[in-house]
């Protein structure tokens, strides 16, 4: 296998919880150890570290650990590392890692995303949020009107979809219902989903920002998720079923939430298929970013699984996207059901499903191809993953 290919050779995850006490660096190392064990690698074989978005000192809960700390804590002799927010979206960190191993800069690299928002908000003395008196950058165009959350921005895309194409709340609700049903089969989602959601409960839930209700929004979670990316010519060193990164895209035409009609999932989705011979018909499972429930619908349409405007009708009733359906979606529960892992959970689950190790939530058949995405608004990244 040529060096010019990149493979995911290990995935790992820490305990997933709400208001965890364990230090976020240790959670990250827990996930790294699990991923190394899975790949059959030792830390001495790691020569790169990639993360999104890098440590964020103004609110450590959002991103409490930097690539530099992993290099330092584990004694990694790194040949390339990167932690940056100005990239396509969360999964772009894995895309950048793939470029590094394809280029021969590194052989085996750790990619991670650690979130600690629930813990940090519960311990503000230890994890203060830097309060600013004024807003600037992109935030100045939304915050002054109390559109403080991405929920308010995403809701306006969803309202447009309902207005123009007739999507109903009952249809939209299938994203959260599917997430909750699948999360009940995921041992790592226990702290987030304790009982399956019903349509009645969904329809009567408190509205956050119309049409998004409480169950359409993910919740703050504490966890670390790790993906190990290896070079194609280093696969003889791993003891696992490698999953090839067959294509990736992270396109954006305009960097804005409100000057565009639709999120960048559409341009990123279209570009993914220009870089591969695979087509949407080859895909066995989809793991789509669902920080807000409308976003998977943009990915379904953007990636061409259905036509523009057809997403609501496609998910109606939820059977097509169920674990035993024609296009199983977010089989681990997504962020709505399994916690705000912030993007990396989708890659973790795609690899798990392609290896056939998803246990009670394993999709039937012999899945070989999956798509994992992350992002909303101008943030967008997609990975096409294949088991050869």
């Amino acid at each position: 296998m040529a060096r010019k290919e990149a493979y995911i050779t290990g995935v790992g995850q820490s305990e997933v919880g709400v208001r965890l006490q364990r230090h976020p660096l240790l959670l990250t190392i827990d996930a790294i150890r699990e991923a190394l064990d899975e790949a059959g690698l030792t830390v001495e074989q790691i020569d790169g570290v990639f993360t999104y978005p890098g440590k964020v000192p103004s609110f450590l809960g959002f991103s409490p650990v930097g690539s530099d700390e992993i290099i330092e804590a584990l004694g990694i002799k790194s040949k390339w590392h990167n932690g940056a927010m100005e990239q396509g979206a969360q999964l772009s960190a894995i895309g950048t890692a793939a470029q590094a191993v394809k280029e021969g800069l590194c052989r085996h690299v750790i990619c991670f995303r650690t979130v600690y928002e629930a813990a940090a908000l519960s311990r503000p003395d230890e994890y203060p949020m830097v309060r600013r008196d004024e807003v600037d950058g992109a935030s100045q165009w939304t915050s002054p009107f109390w559109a403080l959350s991405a929920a308010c921005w995403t809701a306006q895309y969803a309202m447009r979809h309902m207005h123009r194409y007739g999507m109903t709340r009952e249809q939209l609700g299938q994203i959260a219902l599917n997430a909750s049903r699948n999360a009940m089969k995921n041992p790592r989602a226990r702290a987030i989903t304790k009982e399956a959601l019903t349509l009645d409960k969904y329809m009567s839930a408190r509205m956050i920002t119309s049409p998004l209700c409480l169950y359409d929004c993910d919740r703050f979670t504490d966890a670390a998720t790790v993906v190990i990316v290896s070079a194609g010519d280093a696969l003889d060193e791993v003891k696992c079923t490698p999953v090839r990164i067959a294509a990736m895209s992270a396109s954006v035409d305009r960097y804005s939430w409100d000057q565009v009609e639709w999120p960048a999932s559409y341009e990123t989705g279209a570009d993914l298929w220009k870089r591969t011979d695979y087509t949407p018909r080859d895909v066995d499972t989809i793991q789509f970013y669902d920080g807000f429930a409308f976003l998977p619908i943009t990915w379904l349409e953007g990636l061409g699984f259905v036509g523009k405007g057809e997403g609501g009708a496609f998910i109606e009733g939820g059977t097509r996207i169920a674990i035993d359906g024609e296009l199983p979606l977010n089989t681990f529960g997504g962020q709505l059901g399994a916690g705000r892992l912030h993007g990396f959970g989708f890659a973790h689950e795609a690899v798990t499903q392609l290896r056939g190790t998803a246990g009670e939530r394993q999709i039937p058949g012999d899945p070989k191809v999956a798509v994992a995405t992350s992002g909303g608004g101008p943030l967008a990244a997609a990975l096409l993953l294949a088991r050869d």
Partner: protein
Amino acid sequence: MNPPRPKPRLDAVNRPFWTGGAEGKLNITRCGDCGEYTHPPLPICRHCHSENVAPHAVAGTGEIDSYTINYQPWAKDLEVPFVIARVRLDGVPGVILTTNIVNCPVEAVTFDDKVRVVFEEQNGIHYPLFEKVN
């Protein structure tokens, strides 16, 4: 009583937008060469890359491009519900403002409603809000 609105930090580029309301003007950056608008404002035209850009008072009317009724109090004492909307500005192709629709019940707002700007002043900032045109 609502808390004070988050305050934009003024600089040379954004000041005409956030303070134009003092003279009743909704200022959007316009190119003196190609005539196109650039918003959010930049010191360069995003269409023809000319640096000959300046604030231009536009009509201040428009239509609702999309909206959401917000029920979540994101700040202490924030009164809910209220409408957050995107407004397409008349005569300013390609420019949309995120804003609030005020002076009507939240359920009275829908797509393509015609609206006009009303400025709300707080601490030297003239926030461009919009109300429905009857």
